[in-house]
Each structure stands twice: as structure tokens, then as C-alpha cells.
């Protein structure tokens, strides 16, 4: 609980806001219940979002590899990821501008915008497929390579009892060759 102090603080604050709305605001009790739930949900959503943003800004959530091309020899940035990021942000910022100026969500999203995002997302997916298919070891850089030819990979997971601390130990043994039979 001590590690998640922000989480519990958000939860308590949302409940307090809901109670304040339900008790102190004058009006019809049916409407007050709806308002209390709405404002409580709004507060908790905002605070959870803010917690995530604060963690990203402080480095607690690491996004340094956001544009990294997995399985690349140079370990450089991926052009398709960069394009997807740019287009996503451009459409998000546009939506914000429209909401601010109209005080309402747009009624229709033109097919052109969906096509734009579709092209970008498809490019990213195909690029990832090409990159992982072209990797020398057949892996996509996420550590999920195939077992060696003729060899075996043994995964062992040991879970200690709760009295012993409940530690979980994973062991992976790779044998380069095995004697069949």
C-alpha cells in the first residue's frame, strides 16, 4: 500500500468529491446521485491520468525506447513508429482544437483521417514484420528467439511458500544438442 500512495490518495479524493456533491449540493436526490457518480468518476480518471503523466515525466515509466527499432543492428529509431507517433499526435491535437472551439465533439470523422491513420498503422505493422523476418536469429529483438537446432530449452519456475517470502524464481536451461531416444 505504501508503494501505491498516489493510487489510494486518488481513490479517497474521488470518494470525498462524490460525497460532497451528494450531500452539500442542493437539488433532487435522484439527480444528486447521478452527479456524485459522474464527478467521482471524472476526478478519479483525471488523477489516474495525471499519475501516469507524472510517472512518465519523472522517468518512473520509461519511454526512452518508444521509437526504438527492435532487432536493428544500429539500435536506432524506427521511421514507421515515428510516423505513427506524429500522425496520432496531429489528429489528437486537431480533436482538441475542435473541441475547444466548438465546445462539442465532432459529429463525423472523415474517412480521409481514418485512412491516414490506417496507412500509418499498416506501415508500422508491415515494417515490424519485415524487421523480425529479416533478423539473423529469427527473433524480433524482444528475446523470443527459437530454440537452437537439435537442442532443447527448459523453463523451470519455482514458487516459494508464503512463509518463505513467496519468491518466484524462473530458470531457463538451453542445451545446444540432445541425444534422441
Amino acid at each position, binding site marked *: 500500500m505504501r508503494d501505491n500512495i498516489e493510487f489510494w490518495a486518488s481513490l479517497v479524493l474521488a470518494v470525498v468529491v462524490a460525497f460532497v456533491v451528494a450531500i452539500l449540493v442542493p437539488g433532487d436526490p435522484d439527480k444528486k446521485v447521478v452527479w456524485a457518480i459522474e464527478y467521482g468518476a471524472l476526478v478519479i480518471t483525471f488523477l489516474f491520468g495525471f499519475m501516469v503523466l507524472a510517472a512518465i515525466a519523472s522517468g518512473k515509466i520509461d519511454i526512452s525506447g518508444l521509437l*526504438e527499432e527492435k532487432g536493428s543492428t544500429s539500435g536506432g529509431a524506427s521511421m514507421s513508429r515515428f510516423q505513427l507517433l506524429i500522425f496520432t499526435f496531429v489528429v489528437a491535437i486537431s480533436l482538441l482544437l475542435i473541441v475547444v472551439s466548438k465546445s462539442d465533439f465532432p459529429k463525423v470523422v472523415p474517412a480521409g483521417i481514418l485512412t491516414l491513420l490506417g496507412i500509418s498503422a499498416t506501415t508500422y505493422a508491415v515494417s515490424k514484420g519485415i524487421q523480425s523476418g529479416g533478423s539473423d536469429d529469427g527473433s524480433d529483438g524482444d528475446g523470443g528467439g527459437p530454440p537452437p537446432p537439435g537442442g532443447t530449452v527448459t523453463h523451470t519456475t519455482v514458487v516459494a511458500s508464503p512463509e518463505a517470502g513467496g519468491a518466484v524464481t524462473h530458470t531457463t536451461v538451453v542445451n545446444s544438442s540432445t541425444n534422441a531416444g
Partner: protein
Amino acid sequence: MPNVAQFAAWEGIILVSGLCGIVLWKLMTGGISLKCLLYGDARVVKGGGRKSYFSAGRAQMLMTTVVSAGYFLLQVIEDPTQFPDIPTPFLIALGGSSAIYLGGKAQALYLGRLRDLAGLLDRRGQ
């Protein structure tokens, strides 16, 4: 009681613009690396393995992306009441750019660079 939809809209604005701001800030300060953005991997035709090279396909895709994003943003700034209509030729150009990038990437990774392939063919022809 104030309208809850207004609050929700402002909440979304703060969170999304905050996320955009943090990501842009990290891009500017190097927190998110753009190293080797224009460099791709190519199969070494003779000897095997892979090497890094400057990719023209990536360069043209970067230009297309920046121009498209700029055009789109300018359209929205000009008329911020609705999403702009994107002309079909614009989408075709974007799709073509992506196809060139992907084709170049697949060719470099699976066959090697055209320059190396041409050199190999020349040596075999002699």
C-alpha cells in the same frame, strides 16, 4: 451544477496536451532517442551479416510525414470547427511513400542493397 461534459472535455484536453508536451519535450531533449532515424539495416551480400546504411526511403518518408502533418495542422488551425477533408491524391502520395519505404526495407534486409547486388552481378559477368 456545472455541466459535467464541459469538465470532461477540459480534463481530456489537459491530459492529452500534457502527454503530447511530455513526449515532445523528451524528443527535444534526447529522452526519446532519434538516433539513426534515417539509417536502415541491409544484408551484406558477400560474407553474410548485416550493416547499417543511409536509407533514401526513410528520408523521403520523413519528408512526406512532416509535410502531411504540417498541411493537416494548418487546415485545422484555419478552420477549427471540423476535421479537414484530406484530398485523395494526398492519401495516394502517402501510401506510395510508405510502399517505397517498405519495399526498400524488405529488399535491403532480404536481398541486400542494390549497389552491392549490381557489383556482385558485374563481377560474375566478367
